[in-house]
């Protein structure tokens, strides 16, 4: 059963306990200075963005068909059946294609390290595998962030929207964006105000390159055959010319 996180911004009070719990789980430092930063970074894997009296969390969306998993040439990212997109830092060569490609601009890099790795929320992969909920959901005192089965959470989100249509934007962000994500968002103001793209289609991003890439074997084979044919024709022509022309010489192998 696929798990997910549902974050309902209308219930969020901006206490940032999710940030703190996340830092603890990932063994990252957390203090007031870090708390005041709204950007995701290698030392802050989730963040609460504040716009007036509205809040919105930013974290890895843990896509159903993740771009990072598809672009990583050494396969450092994996999508677990339960939902988390996890990262094996021992494989990573540091090309940073995942960072360029991610439609949510999530993966962050340890720019100050001599041998840096990529950092991102992995939806508490180890905890979820052990049947527990994510650290952020556990820490949330208001129920703004909850954890559960993805289908059940989507049903819950729909219920909330239909019960109080005037309190919500009629959209569950992450239900179908880029093929669906394991993080679902509800908000009372447009998501774009918090830096979420409004132009994402429902097609998984990896399809954009796969559509081309899947033809590589064909192109290679066809190209090889075609070029061999051209080579044969052009050299045969030369042989014929040589044979018809000055045939005083012994047959010369080309």
């Amino acid at each position, binding site marked *: 059963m696929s798990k997910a996180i549902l974050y309902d911004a209308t219930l969020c009070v901006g206490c940032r306990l999710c940030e703190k719990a996340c830092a603890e789980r990932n063994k990252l430092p957390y203090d007031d200075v870090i708390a005041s930063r709204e950007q995701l970074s290698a030392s802050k894997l989730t963040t609460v963005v504040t716009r007036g009296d509205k809040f919105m969390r930013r974290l890895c969306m843990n896509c159903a068909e993740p771009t990072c998993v598809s672009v990583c040439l050494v396969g450092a990212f994996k999508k677990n059946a339960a939902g988390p997109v996890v990262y094996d830092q021992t*494989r990573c060569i540091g*090309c940073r294609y995942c960072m360029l490609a991610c439609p949510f601009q999530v993966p962050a890099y340890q720019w100050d390290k001599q041998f840096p790795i990529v950092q991102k929320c992995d939806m508490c992969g180890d905890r979820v595998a052990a049947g527990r909920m994510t650290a952020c959901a556990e820490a949330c005192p208001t129920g703004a962030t909850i954890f559960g089965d993805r289908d059940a959470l989507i049903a819950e989100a729909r219920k909330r929207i239909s019960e109080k249509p005037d309190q919500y934007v009629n959209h569950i962000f992450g239900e179908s964006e880029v093929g669906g994500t394991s993080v679902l968002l509800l908000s009372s103001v447009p998501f774009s105000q918090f830096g979420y793209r409004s132009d994402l289609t429902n097609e998984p991003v*990896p399809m954009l390159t796969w559509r*081309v*890439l899947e033809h590589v074997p064909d*192109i290679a084979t066809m190209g090889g055959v075609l070029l061999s044919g051209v080579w044969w024709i052009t050299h045969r022509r030369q042989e014929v010319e040589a044979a018809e022309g000055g045939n005083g010489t012994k047959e010369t192998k080309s």
Partner: protein
Amino acid sequence: MNLAATLRRQLTFWKALFYFIMAGGLAALYVRVVYGLGAATNQTDAFPWGLWKGFNVLAGIALGAGGFTLAATVHIFNVEKYKPVLRPAILTAFLGYLVMIIGLTIDIGQPLRIWHPIFMWNPHSVLFEVCWCVMLYLTVLMLELAPAVCERLGWRASLRVLRTISVPVVLFGVVLSTLHQSSLGTIFLIVPYKLYPLWYTPLLPVFFFVSAACSGFAVVMFASWHSAKAFHRQLPLPLLESMGSVLAVLLTFYLAMRFWDLHQRGMLHLLLVNRTETWLFLLEIGLMLAPAALLFHRRVRNNPTALYVCSAMVILGMVANRLNVSLTGIEAASSTHYFPKWSEWMVTFSLIAGAFALFRLAAKHLPIFPEAQVPSSAILTESSLPPAPQAELAFSRRA
């Protein structure tokens, strides 16, 4: 005498420039290795790919395209008259790829793991495919270059082996090049939300391939001109003239496709928007359009200087395209500003200068050019002044 004095002064200047660039590159490398990418570059989380990817890798590989275009022309299409420039072309390609790999090793966060893609596979990744093609193609280039080395050393047996396998090797190389030159464009198909629509198109792989082929020819013309100068040889003008006309046709084809694509996607109106991207696009197109128009004239093609300027413009146009696709076209959507740090420039410049030095070294000591036997006096005077005038060619080769 007056001339000799001027020449000497010039050589000293280029020599000084070369050492300055190399020293700067070493300093930058020190910062990179000891303090990390954050200290050595202006790359950020919002802008993870900088000059080292855009220029060293993307433009570097495209500049090496001369190797496969000429190998295909001479060996597969059997156009014998292009043979004199085949080895120089393969040498430029080999150096381009070599320098690209050095540049990439400096750029990635974990250089000691650069071998990982050999054992850790992800066939869904464009980079994985590019990586394998490049590794294999570098092997091909070494095999294509090996005859020159064997001839020099008088290794007859090895030469015979190389000759027997040469046709399949060349075929393999052309297929590999076609794949990865285009795949470098495919890399950017994954960023539809970031890349400005003047550049983002499903045809990116095709455009990358065709423009690489154009710059491949241009680099060979450029290198021929420079080495003729440096080694006091006569420029093979009839050959370059013929390459010029091929280049004109290729460029026209490329430009027509670019505009047809803009039209198809309904993006032509963007050319009227006053934004940085528009001007950069026009610059890139202009650098391709001008030589395309000029090279259709026989008078231009028979003028060495004009040929040289045209080939330089094509090279710069290709470089502008790669930088636009990988850097400037992505900047606006990343809501950040990126300008390379001094250390990024220095590493790039040293790679270019290094490639030039190596080209000169190889051209001098290996049978690269057909009648490359330089008058002994010239060898003496020039080799006693280390890698000087190639700094002058320097900015062509790799960049």
